């Protein structure tokens, strides 16, 4: 590989790492956190992250089981073909998301203020 290529790759790596750092910095907060579940852009549930909870969301498209425990939220079961949402790591920081594209379902951590 040429030097020019390595420099541009390094710059791209820095941009993405910077983006990740910025994402966590901007979202850092001491406020209590809420787990917001939306489908098709509409909020269908808002649950406190501090409270252990388990709920299955289902509609014609299929089902997703959300489990909140130990201040983390995770989708443990779904009947979508890809299972990407189940494989996604559990989330705990504001701004983090779990997405189930086939069911158009998104689980987000937000600060309780907004």
């Amino acid at each position: 590989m040429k030097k020019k290529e390595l420099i541009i790759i390094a710059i791209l790596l820095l941009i993405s790492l910077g983006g990740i750092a910025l994402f966590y910095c901007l979202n850092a907060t001491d406020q209590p956190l809420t787990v917001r579940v939306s489908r098709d852009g509409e909020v269908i549930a808002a649950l406190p992250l501090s409270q252990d909870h388990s709920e299955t969301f289902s509609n014609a498209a299929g089902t997703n089981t959300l489990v909140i425990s130990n201040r983390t939220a995770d989708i443990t079961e779904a009947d979508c073909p890809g299972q990407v949402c189940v494989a996604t790591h559990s989330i705990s920081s504001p701004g983090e998301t779990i997405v189930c594209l086939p069911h158009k379902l998104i689980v987000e951590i937000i600060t309780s203020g907004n």
Partner: protein
Amino acid sequence: MPPSQINCGNHHQWQLMNSKSYRLVILSLYVAMALILSYVESFIPLGPPGIKLGLPNIITLISLITLGWPLTILVVVGRVLLSGFMFNPGISIVYSLSGGLLSLLVMGLLLHFFKDSYSLILISIFGAITHNLGQILMAAIVIQNASLIYSTFPFLMLTAIPTGLFIGLVAKELIGLLNKTTIFNRLNS
């Protein structure tokens, strides 16, 4: 190579084909190979969920260089539609198509502007990054949640750089080997 040089020596059947039909044969081969690669890559888990190596992009890159961008649109659309109907049914076609076409646009423009001094590795990396961007933009539209873009893109961009680098290195090796053969001689005659 001028046509006179190709036509001398033994006349094989394929040499009698006009270049339009020959281009069609190569195009079909690209679609078939990209289709197989997209099937193969579904067996290669890469850690983070939903992350793929991007093996079909090897074919897209080679098609861009040898056939140009207009025909490569057919390669990408053909591969996405066929693999969508055969391997991942449902809405995933929409995401693959938006990612595939956006990355093709960016790779085509890079190839156009840098002409002979292009770096296939960098084109591949930018293609991988914009493929993710295209998918996220489409996902944000489908799910109607714009914050998905900034909460996902930096992470996907970080994974796109090594995978794009790998694909770029493979495509560079492959195009070097293919250029030693006479396969592409008739394409532009």
